[in-house]
């Protein structure tokens, strides 16, 4: 598959809302989130912990932890709705069409089975082939993800691999049925810094080779800059800004994104303090009225405290901020 610019949408998420019914009212973890991913595209999703990025990923693969549930909106894969699919049908989407990579490779693999067995098991679940062919495919996958001496390692148990190697095995598992989309939730966070770049490069290379799209959830702006085609910045359950990664990094429009960019140290620039955003992201149970970011925003004005901003298109970027409203109704 080539990487020709493809306008068709592989994944469409429309007005997604994820709720957690709690004893004292309902928490809204993801609120009115919409975005698309094109075939072969890498969409980075950044935000602080609790911003709803992992929840969005979990909702897409249909594995929200109860009592969490999709309370509104739709998720389409190739035009077909996959939210609310019966469990058994969704199970066939998972692994087959949407692969997943989790944060902690040390705990993602079952300690009692060899990596080969876990690969073969996944392959046979989704693809119609003989046990022997599945094992050959498993071996090929291990070689693809760069496991040295794969013929020997295929019969080893997870605890015999290092963290970085285990994440490679996890990637092989995610790719084992050749899915069209991979949801990678913080795939490098638990790894040594020296290994992180290798894993990111690997994911990028494999997905380009297989034409697999990636939803890369992370809080690491550096990883996004390195890997993603487009980036969505999430704040308190909503998308603050989504656009091509170059634009968002060089010309951040949302004040929150600006703040995020300001907090990344730049090599070669004169020292001095890093900019930081004052305050903390609100708890889900206490999201302020209007724009959720307004109490921390230096540019906030009256409307921000009263009305929730809807996404506005500025060039190739959608930004949810009243600063960009062409009709400056109440703007001071």
């Amino acid at each position: 598959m080539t990487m020709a610019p493809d306008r068709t949408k592989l994944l469409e998420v429309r007005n997604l809302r994820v709720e957690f019914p709690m004893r004292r009212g309902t928490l809204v973890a993801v609120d009115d989130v919409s975005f698309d991913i094109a075939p072969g595209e890498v969409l980075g999703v950044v935000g602080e912990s609790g911003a709803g990025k992992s929840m969005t990923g979990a909702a897409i693969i249909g594995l929200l932890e109860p009592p969490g549930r999709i309370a509104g909106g739709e998720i389409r894969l190739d035009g077909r709705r996959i939210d609310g699919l019966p469990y058994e049908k969704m199970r066939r989407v998972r692994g087959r069409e949407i692969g997943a990579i989790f944060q902690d490779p040390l705990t993602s693999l079952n300690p009692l089975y060899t990596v080969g067995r876990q690969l073969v098991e996944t392959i046979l679940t989704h693809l119609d082939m003989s046990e022997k062919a599945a094992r050959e495919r498993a071996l090929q996958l291990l070689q693809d993800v760069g496991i040295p001496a794969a013929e020997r390692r295929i019969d080893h148990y997870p605890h015999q691999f290092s963290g970085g190697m285990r994440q490679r095995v996890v990637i092989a598992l995610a790719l084992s049925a050749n899915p069209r989309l991979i949801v990678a939730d913080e795939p490098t966070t638990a790894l040594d810094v020296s290994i992180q770049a290798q894993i990111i490069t690997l994911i990028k290379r494999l997905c380009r080779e297989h034409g697999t799209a990636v939803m890369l959830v992370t809080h690491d702006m550096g990883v996004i800059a390195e890997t993603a085609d487009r980036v969505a910045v999430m704040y308190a359950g909503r998308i603050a800004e989504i656009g091509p990664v170059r634009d968002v990094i060089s010309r951040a429009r949302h004040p929150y994104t600006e703040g995020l960019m300001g907090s990344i140290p730049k090599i070669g620039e004169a020292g001095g303090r890093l900019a930081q955003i004052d305050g903390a992201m609100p708890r889900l149970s206490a999201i302020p009225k209007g724009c959720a970011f307004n109490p921390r925003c230096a540019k906030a004005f009256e409307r921000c405290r009263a009305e929730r901003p809807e996404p506005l298109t500025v060039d190739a970027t959608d930004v949810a901020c009243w600063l960009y409203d062409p009709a400056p109704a109440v703007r001071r």
Partner: protein
Amino acid sequence: MIAFVIRRLLQAVLVMMAVGFVAFSLFAYVGDPVAIMLGQDFTAESRRLLVHELGLDQPFFVQYVHFLLNAAQGNFGISYRLARPVSELLLERLPATLELSLCAAALALAVGVPLGVYTGLNRESWLSRLLLTVSLVGVSLPTFLIGILLILVFSVVLGWLPSFGRGTTVALGWWTTGFLTESGLRALILPSVTLAMFQMTLIMRLVRSEMLEVLRTDYIKFARARGLSDRAINFGHALKNTLVPVITITGLQLGGIIAFAIVTETVFQWPGMGFLFIQSVSAADIPVMAAYLVLIAFFFVMINLVVDLLYYGVDPRLRIDRAAAAGHGH
């Protein structure tokens, strides 16, 4: 692996020597066997002779070593009460106790594990809640009470099953079995259920909590994300990961079942070692008590050893870490 087995065997020998010491102390501190054996009329001379004959005039340590050497050869002396060799008495009753205990253990496992898996997977269903509530009763009711209630219902009121004894047994060499006759099997039901009840509920609750624990782990979530079927996840991935603690507890429980068969055997007049032990206690028949103590300790030690070896079968981390550690000379 072999080094491990040897080390465990040496530990087992130490444990057995310690138990032997306790058992031997019974002779010195519980009652006066000489007085019991001599009866009412004796002279100082006949007493001195008997004491000498029994070796009781030897120093304590020598007596202990004698006891250990004899015990190691299966010679525990003569029963005061029945005037027959203790080893013979125990050997006669061993099959009854072992058959009862193994039946109870098999029952506890066969019922406890599936119920534990069910209640772990269907946490919210009414049947799970009911089972958990009932299991609390099973854990808290004393064994003898369960036995008596079962006798009341199934023997006295309904008259379906015998209330005591082993029924007709068949001798296979020195081993007498109740498995081959209908009355033997019928007689086995109530005592087995009674003895199994506590372990069954314990295993069920253990499997349930382990299942709940394992189902929360990342590798189960990841297995779901890989699209594996529920069956593969629940039984292939989750259940197997609960086995190490379940094997541990079940193993220890098997020892417990054999030892605590005393109560069940007494309630059902089951002609096993436990019943013999109770009778011996009331008659201060110390050789039998001491031998029983040693034998039960032996069962515990052997079962623990087997349990440790089973870990190797279940958990590859143990297998390979040891092998790797040995290979690299750490």
